[in-house]
């Protein structure tokens, strides 16, 4: 406990005049895992970026083994033995494992400009054995699963003799089994004396892994201590700054008779088979399934992004033409996509422009197409205020500058502005913090109460059991089960999601 490896003292940083880090004092110790938690926008990423040399603090100092550490850029961090495992992986999928591991510093044949392939492979094999990944160093990364790729990232960090490794939400795209393997590796690194910072919104994981806990709120360190002193409710209340009685708001008593979204016999070879699905006015329908069960593929077809061979979709009794997102929007459908960065936002555009994007035709004058800017910005600002998006200016600040939870609210906001009858939301709470999650659930609940239908896709069963009126389970392109709220049972729902389809066993 005494061997302090790294220390922050009095670190301050501000953006747009907003203090995002306010006098952080923190120590990292060899052979210990620090669980760093906080809502999105609390300053976790900024602190990591300061440590990684991406941002320079305005005040304060950092010390590595007692010596002053002032990184000029990411290369300095890596040279000092600080490695990062990011939420989004930074591998070159077209290259092999070994090439990825050594991409920054290939072993050379003497001083010649050629790669020493044998030495590279040998070293890569050692590292892979270290982390327990049974694959040839020459395997192209594109053939690896997300979990295996994560391990390659760790091997890459280890190759540069990292003594401090920071993990930022490393499990978001991993299966339960892959997560277990990752935790094993983290524990082994810890036993070897590596200092680890583990950042995650999945608090049970943080408890399982960490020795110490540090809680950030609004750029300040509000609580630190040993993990024994931090039961999960205390973690949540220190992150949010108030006592949170429940993680999920109860679903509203609003389900009506009328089906507002009806899917009949939707089929597309290799993707979905004979899908029947209805969402009623005022209802939140959870859609559960394993990765690859075809949930995203199904809703893309419903929304009109991908074609389907048979079947049809109706909204409030009116059929949608299919294959035409614009017509789906006019029909009253909204699709909050899973991937904010690639599919949701115009990163360099202001918040208000992003929120206005879907509803834009409604603010254009007929024939000339001239946009009524004032009305547009008023409406977008109204939505942003309702959703409590935290920003200095909705008209000037870009989506890029927001935290993950606030970005997600922008994506939801742009669909709300089009006043949809049915919202399809695909993993809306992935990678956002507890407080923002609660807000997203509340927003969806309010919409349902007002009569919209919600189709809520998630891989977190607890969340669906918390907020949905009904859960349908998808498995290999088929709907294999439907459970009313009174019948919610973790075991049975999981069993349905894991069941092999009968035809396949026969075949």
């Amino acid at each position: 406990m005494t061997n302090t490896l790294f220390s922050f003292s009095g670190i301050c940083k501000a953006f747009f005049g907003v203090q995002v880090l306010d006098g952080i004092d923190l120590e990292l110790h060899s052979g210990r895992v620090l669980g760093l938690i906080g809502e999105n926008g609390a300053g976790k990423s900024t602190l990591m970026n300061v440590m990684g040399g991406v941002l320079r603090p305005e005040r304060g100092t950092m010390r590595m083994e007692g010596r002053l550490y002032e990184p000029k850029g990411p290369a300095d961090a890596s040279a000092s033995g600080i490695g990062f495992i990011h939420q989004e992986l930074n591998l070159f999928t077209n290259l092999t494992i070994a090439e990825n591991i050594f991409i920054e510093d290939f072993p050379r044949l003497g001083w010649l400009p050629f790669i020493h392939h044998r030495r590279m492979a040998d070293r890569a094999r050692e590292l892979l054995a270290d982390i327990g990944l049974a694959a040839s160093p020459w395997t192209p990364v594109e053939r690896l699963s997300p979990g295996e790729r994560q391990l390659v990232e760790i091997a890459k960090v280890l190759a540069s003799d990292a003594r401090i490794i920071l993990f930022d939400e490393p499990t978001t795209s991993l299966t339960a089994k892959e997560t277990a393997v990752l935790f094993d590796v983290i524990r082994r690194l810890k036993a070897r004396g590596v200092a680890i910072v583990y950042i995650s919104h999945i608090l049970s994981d943080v408890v399982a892994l960490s020795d110490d806990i540090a809680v950030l709120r609004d750029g300040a360190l509000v609580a630190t201590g040993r993990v024994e002193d931090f039961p999960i409710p205390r973690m949540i209340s220190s992150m949010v700054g108030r006592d949170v009685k429940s993680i999920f708001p109860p679903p509203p008593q609003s389900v009506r008779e009328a089906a507002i979204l009806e899917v009949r016999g939707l089929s597309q070879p290799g993707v979905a088979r004979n899908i029947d699905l209805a969402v009623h006015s005022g209802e939140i329908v959870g859609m559960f399934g394993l990765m690859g069960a075809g949930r995203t593929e199904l809703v893309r077809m419903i929304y009109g992004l991908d074609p389907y061979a048979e079947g049809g979709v109706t909204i409030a009794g009116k059929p949608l033409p299919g294959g035409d997102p614009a017509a789906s929007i006019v029909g009253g459908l909204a699709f909050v996509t899973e991937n904010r960065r690639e599919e949701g936002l115009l990163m360099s555009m202001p918040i208000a422009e992003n929120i206005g994007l879907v509803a834009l035709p409604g603010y254009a004058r007929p024939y000339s197409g001239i946009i009524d800017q004032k009305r547009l910005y008023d409406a977008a600002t109204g939505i942003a205020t309702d959703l409590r998006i935290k920003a200095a200016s909705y008209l000037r600040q870009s989506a890029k500058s927001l935290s993950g939870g606030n970005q997600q609210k922008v994506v939801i906001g742009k669909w709300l502005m089009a006043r949809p009858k049915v919202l399809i939301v695909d993993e809306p709470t992935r990678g956002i913090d507890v407080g923002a999650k609660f807000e997203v659930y509340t927003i969806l609940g309010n919409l349902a109460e007002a009569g919209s239908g919600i189709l809520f896709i998630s891989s977190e069963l607890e969340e669906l059991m918390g907020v949905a009126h009904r859960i349908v389970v998808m498995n290999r392109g088929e709907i294999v089960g439907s459970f009313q709220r009174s019948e919610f049972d973790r075991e049975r729902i999981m069993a349905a999601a894991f069941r092999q389809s009968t035809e396949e066993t026969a075949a």
Partner: protein
Amino acid sequence: METQETNQVSGSYRTGGNRLSHAFGRMFLPRRDTISIGSLAKNALLSEYFVLYLSIAYMIVLWPIIPWMFGAQNVSDILSNMWPLLIIAIGQTFVLITAGIDLSQTSVMALTSVVGAMLMVGHVDPLLFSKSPVWGILLTEEGGLLSGYSLSFIFAIVAMLAIGALVGLFNGIAVAVFRMPAFIVTLVSMMFFSAIAVYLPKSENIQGLPEAYTSISSGSLLGIPYPLLLAVAVGVAAHILLSRTLYGRRLYAIGINPTASAISGIPTKRIVVLAYVISALCATLGAVLYSSRLEMGRPTLGDMQFIDIVGANVIAGVSLAGGKGKITWTLFGVFFFVLLANSLNLLNLPFYMIDIVKGAVILAAALLDVARNRAAIQSR
């Protein structure tokens, strides 16, 4: 005398370069104490109007060296060179915003000038044109199909615009619907339509255009030259289209994130196709101005002009990566570029020197764009 002038100019260039590198120095070493001149330079650099300031500074530097640059004759030369280039560059801006590029604008200029001229030309020399593939069909000794009609020039311009629109439609459909890379599509259409422009008149210039047509470039309304009127009309329309309409918003959105745009219900294909059509139509209008001034249809019209078109846009700060650009920027970019070309001409530099300098300026502009983006991020 001449060498002395050249020396002076390269001298003035060097100071210009120093000022720039000083500004770059501030950009890359932002930790140093802020000197007021430095922060002034940085503010100017980050300003939307930087290229305009640069043009004014350049004129001030040139004033003592080539005072005749500001004579009435030369000013009118500068302006008459500027209007057609501006119209064409505006078209290119639309395509650049979609993160595409239109290399075929110059071939549209050549093709439409040739076809337009063939339709309205009066008498032609059979010795020159009897080998043309359209001889005896569209073109005879008595001139083109429309020869002799008093309003022939209007029909000819309509035909030119139709041909331009078709070329743009071809480019746009290939890029947006068949998802082919804009670079290769428009490179091929540049080759293809340039070839047709040479093939139709068998590489002869078509002279003897009706006076109504040639007066487009020389005539004026209430003292305002037609080319200026046309450029202002196109510029204002383009500005409103980009900054105020549904179409414009969606065009930027597509340039920034095509996937998110498609999911948000934007008809991305239609909008991108239209951008290529606008680009080709602007090229056609440029061709009308040029060919009326030259008083001929020219199979090589616009040859070597591509670098001016894209160069002016790059100088203006329109990003080749898409999503960024404004008509006012394009206006400043074109102004600076024409000013530069004109001054280099007046200094009697040989053509290769002119190209070297132009190239260096475009490269510097590209570097400047990178530096500005970085500065914008740092000053957050």
